């Protein structure tokens, strides 16, 4: 099967650089999949789960905030963070979720828009972490 080169780059270094069969990612307009020889494409990335398949094995990555670019049979993700599902600390993510929920409730009560946006983003990250970890475990 034809393959596409996947690169996931974060500020603390590259996370993935590999030829894979298929990539799916949480794009601006929803989940999208990319196969080999995809047309040129540029999309922002939302916080969520990136999956890629290689040799019939699926890997799950939690990604947050960034964009992806497809050109010349190569897909590059520039994201602020990327973690493999199996490396995620579930307890920590759980605590982060609770903390974010509490802060969100407070922000809504006091109608603080800035804190609300921040708490929502934190909550989204925590939820994405938990979901990615769950998917990786179930496999």
């Amino acid at each position: 099967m034809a393959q596409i080169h996947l690169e996931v780059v974060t500020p603390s270094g590259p996370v993935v650089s590999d030829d894979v069969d298929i990539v799916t990612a949480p794009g601006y307009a929803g989940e999208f999949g990319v196969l080999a020889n995809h047309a040129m494409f540029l999309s922002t990335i939302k916080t969520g789960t990136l999956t890629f398949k290689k040799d019939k094995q699926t890997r799950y990555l939690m990604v947050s905030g960034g964009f992806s670019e497809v050109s010349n049979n190569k897909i590059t993700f520039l994201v602020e963070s990327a973690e493999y599902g199996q490396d995620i600390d579930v307890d920590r993510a759980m605590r982060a979720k609770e903390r974010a929920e509490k802060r969100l409730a407070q922000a809504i009560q006091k109608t603080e828009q800035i804190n609300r946006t921040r708490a929502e983003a934190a909550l989204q990250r925590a939820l994405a972490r938990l979901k990615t970890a769950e998917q990786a475990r179930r496999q």
Partner: protein
Amino acid sequence: MPALKDVKNKIQGVKKTAQITKAMNMVASAKLRGAQEKMERFRPYSQKFAAAMSNLSGNIESGNLPLMEIRAVQSAEIVVVTSDRGLCGSFNANIISTAEKLMRQYEAEGKKVSFVCIGKKAHRYFRKTGKVRSSYSDIMGTFQMFNAREIAMDVAENFMVGGSDEVRIVYGKFYSVAIQRPEVEDLLPIKPLSPAEGAVKEAAKVSGAYTYEPEPGEIMEVLLPLYLNVQVYHVMLEVGASEHAARMTAMDNATNACKDIIHDLTQLYNKARQSAITSELMDIVGGAEALKG
């Protein structure tokens, strides 16, 4: 002649100081290596980010993006980035004096100035001016991207609500282990990136073929805050490396100064010892002479 014991004590003391400064030099050089590695790991991300940004900026009108909005400057914000700890020569003092000069310049033009301090040294110095809007201390040792994001968001929000019309950042740029210089850069409004010659052609060639999701303008709206994060993080990395390099140099100088002092004191000690022996001998000889007589 000073007393023998005093000189000996002093030598011991200076030796201990030399031990400490030498240890600090070694710690700083180990930390410098870490900081440089951190910079190295960040490079692919920042390069690709800049490439994508210049690719996109050909496709958009920058006028209606809030972070690119150019206004008449009434109030300016200065982000000062220093280290948390001292004992690194004139590194922090240089950054602070550059920031202060900038402040005077703004105020001479009748503009209001506010500060955002990153690093304890900046905070300590500028808090007495009463112009510090927010400060971030004790993060320079272990900062991550999310620290930079928090600061960038703070600065951007203030800019968007009109708290500042222009934001500049003052920091210590890392040129080499021997050279670190204070540097002033523009942070906000973000200027359209002018892509390099080759990149323009490349962009012109391919930009038509891209499918954008969402529209380029909207992508920019997402990318600009991220770009600000990248810049702040980059500056913090530079300061991190510069701090350790500056400390290495300072501690090396201190160790050498200690060695010089030890050398001088040892000479003094030997002289004092000799004169003590001489006078003792004189006593003995004098005593023997007296007995003979």
